[in-house]
């Protein structure tokens, strides 16, 4: 680490106003200009697919080959946001489920992430595999595997049933991200605080928590998104009773009203986009873990 750090001082020359720009500085200049162009292009590609959905939600009779809608309308929005419509209930379900999943995932992941991050021990590989696999196994496989058992246990079609199955992919994410946070954490500060007479609780509050806060924010953010994005688990285990936004959205989309689908899409996307605004800085730094959600 130190070797590579020292190395980067070698090529950068001492700044003197009279000398012409060095090759490395000229290179960096060119790179930055190219970067700006590339950034505009990339952002356009990322944002472009979302544009038709937004246009659709404000359009009436937006058919081929109109590029700009012939007629603008807020009809879809007034239907989607109607107080007696299903949107608000679905939004409520999604919020409550995702919040509960996030809280539970963080709760169980905190101690596990600490052990995985700070220690190495025999059996750690097996443990890593046990944490990684639930996160990768197709949701369909889990959903149909648990189907009959959840019906028999009376968990099918209930809030807690859906929360439990969402935890299968969400909790491993939280564990892995917190393990990453703890890997850069020095537990010796806790020993120092203890020597100074701090109770276990105040050690956690004043030493551990502030140190791993960024990791905790990212872990919570990702756990929330994982739960927020689940479709087939909710569809199968929720059995049409726990009607979250994605379930409502897919059934609306199959109904074929583009404008209403567009508006509902925005309602579904907005909360996570707002969360991204809040967490963007932390997430960019900590990496996205293995988010493919």
């Amino acid at each position, binding site marked *: 680490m130190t070797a590579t750090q020292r*190395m980067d001082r070698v090529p950068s020359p001492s700044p003197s106003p009279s000398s012409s720009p060095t090759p490395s500085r000229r290179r960096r200049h060119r790179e930055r200009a190219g970067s700006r162009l590339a950034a505009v292009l990339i952002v356009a590609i990322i944002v472009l697919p979302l544009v038709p959905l937004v246009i659709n939600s404000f359009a009436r009779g937006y058919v081929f080959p109109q590029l700009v809608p012939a007629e603008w309308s807020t009809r879809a929005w007034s239907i989607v946001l109607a107080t007696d419509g299903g949107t608000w209930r679905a939004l409520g379900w999604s919020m409550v489920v995702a919040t509960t999943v996030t809280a539970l995932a963080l709760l169980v992941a905190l101690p596990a992430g600490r052990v995985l991050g700070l220690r190495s021990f025999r059996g750690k590989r097996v443990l890593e595999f*046990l944490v990684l696999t639930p996160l990768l*196994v197709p949701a369909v496989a889990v959903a149909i595997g648990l189907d009959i058992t959840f019906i028999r246990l009376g968990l099918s079609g209930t809030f807690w049933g859906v929360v439990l199955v969402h935890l299968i992919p969400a909790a491993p994410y939280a564990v892995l991200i917190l393990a990453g946070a703890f*890997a850069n954490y020095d537990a010796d500060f806790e020993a120092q605080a203890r020597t100074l007479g701090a109770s276990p609780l105040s050690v956690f509050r004043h030493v551990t928590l502030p140190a791993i806060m960024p990791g905790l924010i990212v872990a919570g953010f990702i756990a929330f998104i994982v739960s927020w994005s689940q479709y087939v688990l909710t569809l199968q285990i929720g059995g049409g009773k726990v009607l979250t936004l994605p379930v409502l959205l897919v059934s609306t989309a199959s109904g074929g009203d583009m404008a209403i689908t567009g508006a509902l899409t925005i309602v579904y996307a907005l909360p996570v986009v707002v969360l991204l605004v809040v967490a963007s800085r932390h997430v960019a730094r900590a990496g996205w873990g293995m988010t493919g959600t």
Partner: protein
Amino acid sequence: MSSSGNPRMLAEPRRSAPWRISDRSGRIRDSAWLKLLPALVVIVPLFAAALMLAVIQSLGYFPLIGLRSFNVDAYRSLFGNDEFWQSLLLSIRIAFMASLLSTVLGIAMALGIRGIWRRSRRSAFLFQLSLPIPHVIGALAIVHLLGQSGLIARLGHSVRLIDTPSEFPALVFDPYALGIVAEFVWKDAPFIAIVVLGVLGTVAENYENVAASLGASWWQRLRHVTLPLLLPAVAPISVIVFAFAFGSFEVPLLLGESFPSALPVLAYRLHTSVDLGLRPEAMALAVVMSLVVMASALLYLVLVRRVRRGEQT
């Protein structure tokens, strides 16, 4: 140096504190197992139950519909079914294409914006925009973008390339699953790019500067310095992208042809069929999918290990 953008989420403990060697003696303390317990209790039984139940039911034990014997009939009829092989092939092709294209584009994107990545917060936000957006939305967005009456087709019409929607090539609900792959690339290329940016920022820059000062050209630096540094970090993430694309349900559901359908869609269809006799086959399919994904997980861990070992020497 912080582990910014560290792709290795299964982090190794720090090596710089010799006084904590006792913790790494190779034996885990009892209290440590206790700490692992809550997470394991939540994750393992649920997940293990799901898989065990799938295995048991795939072997024909299905009291609900009067099946109580163990046999491999479901597997035999699944493997004898042409649709299964077509679906398997399709799913593997989707996952492979998604993983390959996301990796190549992700690296290209990262190299493109590395110069301003740490400076512009706004572009950092926009750049990550597709990551938290659910696949259901991504899939619907692709329909409205690449469909035959989608935005691109309309743009084609406005420049007189096509007259009717049917003249636009079928990019969604198509036999090549292009729309499905496009959705995964849209979501996963930026994800890979962020991993790459982490490596570029911490390690690669120094070596690139050395190479540049020794007179290496842009291409030489990319070929002999940057890519060899990136690939070990990116390879495991590509495996993860493969596994996600392979197991995804909603994307092929919303963007795929009905025949052949991707494996997860086929499994769901068999499971929800009115013919309850098809359920063991659905379970067998769930088991097959899980095995493919577990193999990916193992490959991921092996690749990560190799990177770590490489760093230690």
